[in-house]
């Protein structure tokens, strides 16, 4: 008979091992899934995890790794602060969109002027846009105790409508022959978020993600505010006893995650994507939730989790192209990763005991 026994304290070893277990189990069950779809499971797994880095087209796909991982890490770092405090911002996708609209809008307002200060203004506008969008659930929660999960999630759909309206109206390219979508910022040097080092995929958004990792690490481990965030998540009553104002934590965490998501959107629209269009957003805000948990809500863990998820994105696309795997199968595969992570996560706090059934 299997029984679960609570450990006297969380196992350090398992905290590091569970992501590895989760990845292995995802490979096994993902392989079975691909087999059921009539594909060679080993080939599929190899295409997803190996080919993007070392395969035939690796020189194209390798820079993509940073391009995709950058926004994921940036958003996930912000989300992890809230998650640590038990504040569930599910609407990073919406904040990402609004950040992109604000950032692109601020840049396009100066078109066609060329000046050094345009890009920094776009960065600030993007962060502020995401922040403001996240402040809606934050203020509603503080004032009326609404559920931030629902409010932030529903605001994603509002943001999508806003995005459509912007690409069809206010931000539509006047020289675009009536096609929806804004001017392409790649053709506007002052606003373009180009690669810092050519051929690596390293743009300013990736740099911002690295800075965010370091910032979050220092905040959580060396600063009273970070301690208060962790305490609020661990024991809300103890946090109040310790003089933490829960409302301030809510405003900070949601605001911070919104600003980082907004930044990610802004860097994306000014760089890899180039323009505001109806289908500009690609689910980074939702995938970042997986990244945050896969990284154990730890900044360094999130860094690696972001790279891993980016890999499955790129590898997944490759598998769709070369093996004809359906896109839904790839999404299922990514979902499995979170599913197995949460499942084996149990082992951090509990140990499994095998015992024979006791005689009655």
């Amino acid at each position, binding site marked *: 008979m299997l029984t679960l026994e609570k450990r006297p304290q969380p196992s350090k070893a398992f905290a590091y091992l569970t992501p590895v277990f989760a990845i292995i189990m995802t490979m096994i069950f993902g392989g079975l899934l691909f087999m059921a779809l009539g594909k060679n499971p080993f080939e599929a797994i190899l295409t997803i995890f190996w080919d993007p880095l070392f395969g035939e087209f690796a020189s194209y796909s390798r820079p993509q790794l940073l391009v995709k991982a950058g926004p994921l890490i940036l958003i996930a770092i912000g989300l992890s602060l809230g998650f640590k405090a038990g504040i569930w911002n599910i609407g990073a996708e919406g904040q990402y969109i609004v950040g992109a609209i604000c950032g692109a809008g601020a840049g396009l307002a100066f078109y066609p002027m060329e000046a050094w200060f345009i890009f920094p203004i776009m960065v600030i506008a993007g962060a502020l846009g995401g922040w403001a969008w996240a402040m809606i659930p934050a203020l509603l929660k503080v004032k009326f105790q609404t559920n931030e999960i629902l409010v932030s999630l529903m605001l994603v759909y509002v943001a999508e409508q806003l995005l459509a309206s912007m690409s069809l109206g206010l931000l539509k390219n006047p020289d675009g022959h009536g096609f929806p979508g804004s001017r392409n910022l790649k053709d506007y040097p002052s606003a373009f978020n180009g690669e810092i080092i050519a051929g690596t995929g390293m743009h300013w958004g990736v740099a911002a993600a690295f800075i965010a990792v370091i910032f979050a690490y220092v905040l959580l481990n*060396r600063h009273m505010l970070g301690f208060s965030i962790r305490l609020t998540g661990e024991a809300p009553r103890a946090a*109040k006893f310790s003089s933490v104002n829960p409302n301030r934590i809510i405003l900070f965490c949601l605001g911070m995650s919104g600003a980082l998501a907004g930044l990610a959107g802004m860097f994306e629209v000014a760089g890899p994507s180039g323009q505001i269009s109806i289908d500009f957003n690609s689910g980074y805000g939702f995938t970042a939730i997986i990244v945050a948990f896969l990284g154990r809500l730890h900044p360094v863990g999130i860094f690696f989790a972001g790279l891993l998820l980016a890999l499955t994105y790129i590898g997944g696309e490759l598998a769709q192209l070369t093996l004809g795997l359906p896109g839904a199968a790839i999404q299922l595969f990514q979902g499995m990763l979170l599913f197995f992570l949460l499942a084996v996560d149990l082992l951090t706090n509990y140990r499994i005991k095998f015992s024979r059934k006791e005689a009655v």
Partner: protein
Amino acid sequence: MTGTLLTIDGLTKAYPGVVANDTVSFEIKTGEVHALLGENGAGKSTLVKMIYGLVKPDSGSMVMNGEAFAPPEPRAARASGVAMVFQHFSLFDALDVAENIALGMENPPPMRDLAARIRQVSEEYGLPLDPFRTVGDLSAGERQRVEIIRCLLQDPKLLIMDEPTSVLTPQEVDILFETLRKLTAEGVAILYISHKLEEIRALCDHATILRLGKNVGTCIPAETSARDMAELMVGTELQTPKSAGATLGDVVLDISGLSMPSPSAFGTALKNVHMRLRAGEVLGIGGVAGNGQDEMLLALSGEVRVDADALKLKGEPIGRLAPNARRALGLLTAPEERLGHAAAPNMSLTENALLTGNVRKGLSNKGFLRWGKTQSFAEEIIEKFDVRTPGPDNAARSLSGGNLQKFVIGREVLQEPEVLVVNQPTWGVDASAAASIRQAILDLAAGGTAVIVISQDLDELMEVADNFAALNEGRLTEARPTKGLSIDEIGLMMGGAHGMEVAHVDA
């Protein structure tokens, strides 16, 4: 009265790292009150859980009424006539009395019949209870009556009671004892778990004493002194905390007209509380659980803000200040609930030292944490208060209740407070840890700190407090010197018998 109801023979139960019960044997006779004595962790709970079918023994056997008795689950135990009143009630606040009782029954009768039976049983045994009242509105004593009636409806042969008097006033205890005596007169045996020795001497026919899982002796409580029983329980001679008898100084804490609604739905509001506390004074606040003790602590700690002038620390209004601002001025508190309120269970002791120590110990600099200094502070607490743990990196939840309580009290004491407020400082703590916590409180007062001890343990309050006041439905009585107070007077201060009546012995 002479037949043996339950024979327990060599029961052993081991958990990883600890033998909870080691070949425990004793007998319970029909119609007797049998006391099970022992410190926290002595194995009392494990033993009764085995009798009640919640835990299966590793070895050993039980015989009930001449038949082998090995209940695989509580239902089987209940079918054999074993009923149990738990220390922590398992009642649903939002349901009424009859509904709560029906939930615990195998085949509940229609609600109207059940209500009639509840009325009948409650009158017969002097436990008045309206079956249609919502449990959330009942006092702790009344909730216990619900549990007892739930058991009585099963016509038990053996009634197990786990620390039943911890939530009762002295008068309510007397009434409970009348009820229990009436039950034994009808042939019901009672297994009575407690560590209150005077009660056991007044009530019980036999006592079995457990220490570290072993049966270390039996005695007839009426013929044994409380001190002898205590020493059997602890295994060593008891150190009685000694007060240095400091002279009282100026008023440091002045509470006037403090009223506060309870932050929880079924809590008790504080109503117009007045109190003055002088330097070096230990004020004991007694009262039955749920009469505003938790709210009192929240108001003093600053977790709930009150009128600025309702609380004055050395003349300065502090009612609207946050906990840390009060700590800076010297008002420190230690809540009752250790895990989750006074300490964060999953965080290390070092992090838990930071939880309240930041301001007074200077554990951060412009918001940046000084982990080295924090760890030294945690190590100091561990060393000075003899907290048994491998080190400050261990999680709070890995400590036993007594050790964590020593850590929590030590954390506040070492910050040299002007005023210290503790709620239930020795609840669930073994006797030696309790003695050292009480000694720390007395030493602190001797050094000129004013201390408020909120507790339901009257013996503890009598031992440490200079003055005594009681909370009753959110009102605080006037403080009176502890010396010369009789148990009767204390009981009346705590609200008397709350309208309970003695069992109709003739019924």
